[in-house]
């Protein structure tokens, strides 16, 4: 969804990441895990874009590629926040890379490990400002105190010099959010920011992220395996299966009328709050097959309830428009 017809904040084109299976640097491996395999999508400015899928399908890897924590095997990531011309993230180096790091941040999956245990809350939040040499010491202190207020850690001064072990999980995740937001980025990858949190604080953290997004006009890549959370936060979502995007579209349409058999299976696993509604159960066979050197055919073939010989003998189906902007990669729907 492009809000004003202008260029998207982020355009991902054929992004792939393969991990060699015998990672000895001097020996070429000929076996690869295809963690992310030819993924394309766009994120508009200020938009929350959801990435859902089961464990191990490559969500975190995609997120890390987008903030350049890893180098992609191939594909392009064009980032354009309107400040300066569009840049290809996957080839950035040196100064331009450091400038890009002011604009793209990541909130990590595990709040217990994403703070250095030997550094205080202040040290953690101020780090991006410090390495980017932004502001004087007092300016930075100001901004840290303000961020602490924004993420609801008040009174801010009592939190400044606490160590991570003196904080609860929810408070740590708030610190992680404050840290990601303190340099006012235009794009944030939020990797299951609430999955490790207690149910009672999830809503608060989610509301906080939405608040900040609206206030600072941040585009999110919101990674989750929780469809309810995705529905709540994201305007559009992509469903991933074994490194491929199998369905992409407006969140409501995708969740109301899923086209791809995998999305249908995912949804049938989610309990429906209304007891009068019965959804036909969609059964899928087996477990996740490894993405280790997968055959060329449809990734979902082994588990697909409606697969036929055509699926077996042809390549992985391309993403096709199935109904007004809702795309799915399946030959049979």
């Amino acid at each position, binding site marked *: 969804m492009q809000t004003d017809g202008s260029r998207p904040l982020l355009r991902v084109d054929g992004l792939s990441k393969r991990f060699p299976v015998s990672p000895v640097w001097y020996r070429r491996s000929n076996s690869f895990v295809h963690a992310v395999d030819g993924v394309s999508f766009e994120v508009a400015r200020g938009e929350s874009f959801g990435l859902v899928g089961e464990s191990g399908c490559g969500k975190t890897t995609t997120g890390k590629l987008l903030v350049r*924590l890893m180098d992609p095997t191939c594909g392009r990531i064009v980032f354009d926040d309107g400040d300066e011309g569009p840049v290809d993230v996957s080839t950035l180096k040196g100064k331009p890379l*450091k400038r890009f790091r002011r604009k793209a941040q990541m909130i*990590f999956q595990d709040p217990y490990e994403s*703070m*250095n245990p030997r550094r*205080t809350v202040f040290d953690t939040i101020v780090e991006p400002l410090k*390495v980017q040499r932004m502001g004087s010491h*007092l300016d930075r202190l100001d901004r840290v105190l303000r961020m602490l207020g924004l993420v609801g850690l008040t009174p801010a001064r009592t939190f400044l*010099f606490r160590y991570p072990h003196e904080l609860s999980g929810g408070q740590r995740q708030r610190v992680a959010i404050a840290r990601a937001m303190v*340099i006012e980025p235009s794009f944030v990858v939020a990797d299951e920011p609430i999955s490790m949190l207690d149910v009672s604080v999830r809503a608060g953290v989610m509301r906080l992220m939405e608040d900040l997004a609206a206030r600072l006009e941040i585009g999110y890549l919101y990674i989750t395996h929780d469809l309810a959370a995705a529905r709540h936060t994201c305007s559009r979502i992509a469903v991933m299966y074994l490194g491929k995007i199998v369905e992409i579209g407006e969140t409501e349409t995708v969740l109301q009328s899923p086209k791809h058999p995998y999305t249908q299976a995912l949804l049938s696993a989610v309990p429906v709050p209304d007891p009068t509604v019965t959804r036909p159960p969609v059964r899928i066979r087996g477990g996740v097959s490894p993405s280790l050197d997968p055959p060329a055919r449809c990734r979902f073939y082994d588990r697909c309830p409606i697969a036929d010989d055509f699926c077996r003998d042809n390549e992985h189906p391309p993403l096709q428009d199935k109904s007004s902007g809702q795309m799915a990669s399946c030959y049979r729907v």
Partner: protein
Amino acid sequence: MDVQRAPRSVDHSLWRTRLGLAADRLRENWAAFVRARVGVIGLAVIIFYALLAAAHPVLMSTVWDESIYDPVVGYSFDETRQPAPPSLRHPLGTDPLGRDILSQLMFSARSEFMLGLLAAVVTVCIGTMVGAAAAYFGGIVDTILMRLADIMIMMPGISVLIVLSALIGVEHLELGLIIGVLSGFGGTGVVLKSQALSVVVKPYIQAARVAGGGPLHIILVHVVPNLLPLSFLYMMFTVTSAIFSEAVLSFLGLLDIRMSWGLMIHTTESAGYLTQVTEAWWLIFPASLSITLLCSSFYLVGRSLDEVVNPRLRRA
């Protein structure tokens, strides 16, 4: 955005809070150290020897006559027979060359400390950087550093020192540097690397990279501080091994040094008294006991530090 600026005084009081917190941590660690007991004994012995070392120059310039009590060129004219047993004038007796043993013991303590600390500091500086760099960069940097470590570990330390002492004069300074380099690039570096490996995979390292921190920033700010506790531990162990190596090499007469505990035993041995413990015990016991005590004290302090930095080892 519109929030009033923090006044300068807030900043100052924040720094005071920060210092207070550091002091609290120190106090907590000290309590854990004391609870571990053996470390306190070790520390007491170390302080005792440090006082001996510090007292030597004072005694030499006040009550001790230089021509008699100099640890290297002094000679006790009052004794009829050398080595002379302990007496009031010479509390620990004299050696076969008529020199005061207590003075030798105290004089040597200082150089043992300097040797130990030099070796330890060099070891830890090299070991920490080697470990952090190998773990952070991986790949070819790791391979090169670890093969170098293999060479250092395989190198038979004493034989290398024998060859080196034949080629160049090895004194305390050189010895400290050699031991530091051998153990920093060798065993200590490898141990610290294995610790660093568990640090570099932590999400906070990736968070620092996303923030724009370069390798140097990440290694110095995130990796090294998490290695420091273990480094301190190895610092203590290096002191032990440095003092011990020095004793062995001096005993073999391989070092170009004027006086040391090992050399005292060497003198005893070359005068033929080493096997006559009952006859001339004061020649052997002071020096060998000092070597044993000081070495084991640093080791004990290391063990207690291990309990402090390794909360899993702490008793409940």
